[in-house]
């Protein structure tokens, strides 16, 4: 350990590789009442401690999401209690529950309406992969087929503690964002194509920009989808 490490632990974390000051100098400056920081750090720090989720529930997972906002679990300890009822004011979408194929276009549309920067937590087995309904005819096999998911939160449904932990993971992720390079800040408002209904499924079945099917390592023969009889 370097000299004065106890003091270093009290200071803000130096996460910037390109910074001219070393930790020791920074600590000395802080002791003198001068705080040296980066725009990235300050920006991300304030963002991550004020994540506003969208009031938006799809199935039973929503009940756990609501429970995590109540006084017993108290999501506001992490600065995320302000559930906004409109996508225009929210920056976190918690996809809490089964995304049916009928609901998927609306979910994508709501995401498109959210301003940048925006993040997604896929909550529960259904939102991640379709869960127990994966092989059904009416459930989307994971919201990550259409939208870029930041944190996958498994469980059926996940406990409120897990919701809080996924929020912490998201905050860590936000803290690591480079505001010059991150797509949230460079691409303008990200909007993804809204899938359309067909006779059997959604078209397209996934967005190749954000998701591609897993490769089959066994090299089994490829059978094209045949026309299904109604």
């Amino acid at each position, binding site marked *: 350990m370097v000299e004065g490490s106890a003091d270093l632990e009290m200071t803000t974390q130096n996460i910037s590789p390109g910074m001219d000051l070393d930790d020791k100098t920074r600590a000395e400056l802080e002791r003198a009442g001068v705080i040296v920081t980066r725009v990235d750090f300050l920006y991300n720090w304030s963002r991550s401690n004020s994540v506003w989720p969208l009031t938006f529930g799809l199935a039973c997972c929503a009940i756990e999401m609501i429970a995590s906002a109540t006084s017993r679990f108290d999501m506001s300890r992490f600065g995320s209690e302000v559930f906004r009822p409109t996508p225009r004011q929210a920056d976190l979408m918690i996809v809490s529950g089964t995304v049916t194929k*009928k609901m998927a276009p609306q979910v994508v549309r709501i995401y498109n309406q959210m301003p940048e920067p925006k993040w997604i937590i896929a909550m529960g087995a259904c939102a991640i992969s379709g869960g127990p309904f994966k*092989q*059904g005819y009416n459930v989307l096999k994971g919201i990550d087929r259409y939208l870029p998911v930041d944190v996958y939160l498994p469980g059926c449904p996940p406990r409120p503690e897990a919701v809080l932990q996924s929020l912490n993971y998201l905050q860590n992720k936000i803290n690591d964002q480079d505001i010059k390079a991150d797509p949230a800040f460079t691409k303008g408002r990200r909007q993804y194509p809204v899938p359309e*209904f067909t006779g*059997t499924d959604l078209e397209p079945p996934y967005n190749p920009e954000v998701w591609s*099917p897993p490769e089959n390592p066994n090299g089994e023969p*490829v*059978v094209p989808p045949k026309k*299904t009889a*109604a």
Partner: protein
Amino acid sequence: MSEISHEPLLKEFSDAHWDEAACAVIVPEGKARAVAEWLLEQGVDYCSNVTGVDYLESEVKEKINNEAGEEETVTRTEPGRIDVVYHLYSMRDQTGPLVIKQRTSRENAQVESLTPLWRSCELQEREVFDLFGVDFKGHPDQRRILMWDEFEGHPMRKDFVEPFDYEWEPTPHDEILEKHKKGKVIV
């Protein structure tokens, strides 16, 4: 809550019959509205549940006595059908349930809508229309309720073929494992 007796109904409508196994009154074709109106007059004022049941064509073995008086097992083909089941209660008398069934063919599934008499049937008849493809004559607003409008087919029918969208999975099991063994995966 005591059950509603089906005897008066059978007395009033002689061509209706009681299905002991199903504990339900089978309503004759085309008479459902008349039966329902009569029941409503008797105070059966609440329809709690509407659902459909799909029966495929099946072979039934039954024992009959032939001309010589001997017992004989014959096989006959039972045609497929769709039952639309109504669970009725009386809020006035605090009695129920009484189960009535409308029968229809699978090919041209058409029954009479009871929504004009019991408003609570509306959404449930739409669900039966959506999932079983039963046409309800006289329904005020008959369209799909669970699936999207463009959807083809009726998923709760037993011969419904689900869309072929199976993908390779690291840990397949059951039906998916069978499909994997046949190599029937898209990627």
